[in-house]
């Protein structure tokens, strides 16, 4: 009765400054949607706690998409941003509820 489709769930945590660029990239690379949340954190490039000293806060971007799109987005992030910006990208399987019959 309920149809769940297998998909990938890709999460990107990176600097807020990248938000406008990343949104453009996601659409270009075929993501049908994304969800963004403001975040703070710590990683190899030190602490980003939203105080000015760290120049900005982080965003946590979540994309539900097929495997190929997930690969494409991850590859682009690695190439375009990961050298110069704080970033972590991680992936897992998920099942998304099919909203309307005959959608897929």
């Amino acid at each position, binding site marked *: 009765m309920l149809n769940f489709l297998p998909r990938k769930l890709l999460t990107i945590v990176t600097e807020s400054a990248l938000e406008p660029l990343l949104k453009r990239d996601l659409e270009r690379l075929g993501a049908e949607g994304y969800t963004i949340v403001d975040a703070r954190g710590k990683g190899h490039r030190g602490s980003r706690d939203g105080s000015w*000293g*760290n120049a900005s806060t982080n965003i946590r971007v979540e994309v539900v998409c097929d495997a190929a799109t997930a690969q494409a987005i991850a590859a682009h992030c690695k190439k375009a941003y990961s050298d110069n910006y704080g970033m972590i990208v991680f992936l897992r399987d998920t099942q998304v509820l099919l909203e309307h019959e005959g959608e897929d």
Partner: protein
Amino acid sequence: MQLGPLECRLPARTPAWFCGLDPIILFFLLGVLSGVAQSDLRLPPQVYELLSILLLLSIGLKGGVELAAQPFAELFPQMLAVLVLGVVLPLLAYPVLRSMGRFRRVDAASIAAHYGSVSVGTFAVALAYLGSRGIPFEAHLPLFVVLLEMPAILIGIVLARGISKETRWGQVAHEVLLGKSMVLLMGGLIIGWISGADGLDPLSPLFFDLFKGVLALFLLEMGLVTASQIGSLRRHGVFLVAFGIGMPLVSGLIGAVLGSALDLSVGGTAVLATLAASASYIAVPAAMRISVPEAKPTLSLAASLGVTFPFNVVVGIPIYLYYAESVHKVLG
């Protein structure tokens, strides 16, 4: 050093070295001390934004009202000269940063851009400083802030990359020209200019009467931010501190000479010197992060927020007034 005509108006009980310290500077010091002592005091970012918006509009409106009288055409030569100043300052800073500071090209370019541009917070303190001493200054000084914000950013990008095709120049220009602070300053100027003093009268309780109180809160937060830079400074060593003090002392002098050459009053000259001496901590870091992402943002912020801002606000501005008076004596 003789800091010029600072009479001590404070009562006898205050320690001598506090002499001449405006209460708004005490708010700044309170912020610095609280930050250093790791207090949990913090202004919410939204409050900080409200304070900045109020300051920018107040400065713009005030300037606009008084601009009303002025024939606009006379200002063009001054405006051109100020634009040139914004190009020259980063070109001066860059070689120093490369050779003496041994910074990577991108870092030197980014820091240079910060010091070629301006800080509105410092500008506001300078206006308050002159105001409380009754020293007059030109109404169109906010225009100079607008003019000085942009050129250094372009120079910084060129220094980092050459005139590269990859840089989306249009976008850079768009983001700076339509950045929040530019829009509010220019918008305030224009609204003030159209409305005149009478028209703005009902707005004055918010924008004029509260000005100094708002500035005090703003400086409290800036003090906290300054304190948060100290860790970063420790890592990046002594050159950054020296540069953060030396550079404004030099560029302030250049600004003072230019101001006098442009026939500004002593007050106006002191403010132009302050603008030249001030370093950006909002518009430039944002632009550099996107246009020169290889540059380490912590370096330039540590210098600009951790050294130059506090230096200018606490001891720099009296020095730049002293510059202005001296240059006027020599050249006038």
